[in-house]
């Protein structure tokens, strides 16, 4: 008996992600890291954001601050690295480009994961998944796992299973697994493990008797919608095999853009914060322009370290902009509204800005009276062009400008070479 063609060709979704992405990208160019515990630290060498399986086995929790790990690093033979964003960005782009060859329907979900629309018989889909895994590993140099299922939520679950159960060898096609095994998995896993269920909702789900993923998959979608939200209802339907989360060309959780970072050396003056705000104002402008967006609201904030409980200060200010804008001068000026709230002498460990209420530029033509003179003169594009040509920091507006290397720039003491983007930092191969 052959299944009707229509059944055979029901589109499915493959979820592909790189195992321990940052650590794997480092290992691709430094094979001596293979088999050793490796962690990659967040901005400013703050805390562990990626842990190799060996580092996880040492019991290092996700997000553990580096200063707590450092004393034992040597004894463990642990290698800690600063985030090498240029390397990760390039490797990510290569992985995505390669995956794009397998499907015209590719949604880059994050720096290290993507959804792909795929079609075929179970046998073909499994073969496709294995081919993707082998090809990314060989051609780019990083390991991936693949989950293939009728919905995004199940594809993510299948991927997680493929990662944790060696029997799958990194590729799980959901429908090819016996139903009893799938149920067993869903019974074992708490709802918190499922994509799209936030921590704070778990308690509420537990309160109505939903503990495992299996419980959630058997819930009444309408009841779930009434008690929770349409989003949660979608998760239930997806668990039941009905695709409800559409593929997006570009995932723009982009109702906001955030620029924030902790400082290598705390900033203790309003003048220092002013400089930071100027840089972020320009960065926000460039990013908005790149995506053809304008912002209506800007929030600026600063804060002292969590690890320094005395003299705390968390000033913030929310500035409604006079009109939707991507103008660097206006954004910078708005960000400076934070300055009167900065206490001189307090050690600020981080600061940032967030622009929200984003809309496509040119959607609503502002009255000529309110059009921004700087936008008209293309100040933003000019700054961008110069930066592209002469490098970051070669030009800037006002206080974010070309002052000599401010001491708050990111601390990245354990940075590996930017192997693929800088001619002076190419990987070395030994001829000996």
């Amino acid at each position: 008996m052959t299944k009707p063609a229509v059944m055979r060709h029901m589109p499915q979704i493959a979820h592909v992600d790189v195992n321990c992405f940052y650590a794997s990208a480092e290992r691709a160019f430094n094979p001596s890291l293979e088999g050793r515990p490796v962690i990659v630290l967040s901005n400013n060498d703050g805390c562990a954001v990626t842990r190799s399986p060996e580092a996880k086995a040492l019991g290092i929790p996700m997000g553990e601050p580096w200063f707590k790990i450092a004393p034992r690093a040597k004894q463990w033979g642990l290698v800690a690295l600063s985030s090498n964003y240029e390397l990760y960005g390039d490797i990510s782009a290569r992985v995505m480009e390669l995956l794009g060859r397998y499907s015209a329907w590719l949604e880059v979900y994050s720096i290290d994961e993507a959804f792909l629309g795929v079609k075929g018989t179970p046998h073909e889909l499994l073969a496709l998944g294995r081919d993707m895994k082998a090809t990314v590993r060989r051609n780019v140099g990083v390991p991936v796992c693949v989950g293939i299922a009728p919905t995004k939520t199940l594809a993510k679950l299948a991927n997680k299973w493929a990662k944790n159960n060696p029997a799958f060898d990194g590729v799980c096609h959901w429908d090819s697994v016996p139903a009893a095994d799938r149920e067993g998995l869903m019974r074992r896993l708490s709802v918190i493990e499922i994509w799209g269920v936030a921590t704070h909702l778990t308690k509420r789900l537990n309160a109505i008797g939903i503990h495992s993923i299996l419980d959630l998959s058997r819930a009444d979608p309408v009841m779930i919608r009434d008690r929770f939200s349409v989003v949660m209802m979608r998760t239930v339907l997806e668990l039941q095999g009905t695709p409800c989360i559409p593929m997006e060309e570009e995932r723009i959780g982009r109702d906001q853009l955030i620029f924030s970072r902790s400082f290598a050396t705390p900033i203790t003056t309003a003048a220092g914060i002013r400089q930071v705000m100027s840089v972020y104002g320009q960065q926000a402008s460039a990013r908005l322009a790149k995506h053809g967006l304008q912002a209506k609201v800007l929030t600026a904030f600063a804060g002292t370290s969590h690890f320094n409980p005395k003299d705390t200060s968390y000033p913030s200010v929310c500035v409604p902009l006079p009109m939707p804008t991507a103008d660097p001068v206006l954004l910078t000026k708005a960000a400076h509204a934070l300055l009167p709230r900065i206490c001189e002498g307090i050690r600020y460990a981080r600061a940032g800005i967030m622009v929200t209420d984003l809309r496509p530029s040119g959607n609503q033509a502002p009255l000529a009276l309110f059009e921004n003179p700087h936008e008209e003169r293309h100040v933003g594009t000019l700054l961008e062009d110069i930066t592209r040509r002469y490098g970051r920091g070669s030009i800037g507006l006002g206080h974010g400008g070309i002052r000599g290397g401010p001491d708050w720039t990111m601390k990245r003491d354990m940075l590996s070479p930017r192997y693929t983007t800088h001619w002076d930092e190419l990987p070395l191969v030994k001829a000996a």
Partner: protein
Amino acid sequence: MGVVVGPRVIDAGASLLSVLISPVAVAAGYPSPAQDYFDGRIDLNEHLIKDVTSTYVVRVSGESMAGAGISDGDELIVNRALEPVDGSVVVAVLDGELTIKRLRITGAGVVLQAENPAYPDIRVPSLSDLVVWGVATRCLHVV
């Protein structure tokens, strides 16, 4: 004299065909016969890198491959997508390091060969014991 730049769009039935007009100053009066042959300058990326996604550039440290024309400080274009065969110059992983050697696969076994008599060959039990990182396709040698 006028400079013609920018694409011109010709409506060819259903599809729009865009035509690149070469950025050459056009003398009023007599057209340059060479203009018909302008096809853009040579782009080394296009000729030296067949598969951008799978290609990396590495730098050589040492003289063990001198006989193959690969010297200390040269850059190699390495394609990871290529299947290594007998005779390929490969970047292999040896003792946690990226190492450049000539791969020899014969009936007698697998050997990583240096191209300099001062350096020994390395015998590998079988091809499956060998981690080939990539296959070098070009050497950028400073003359």
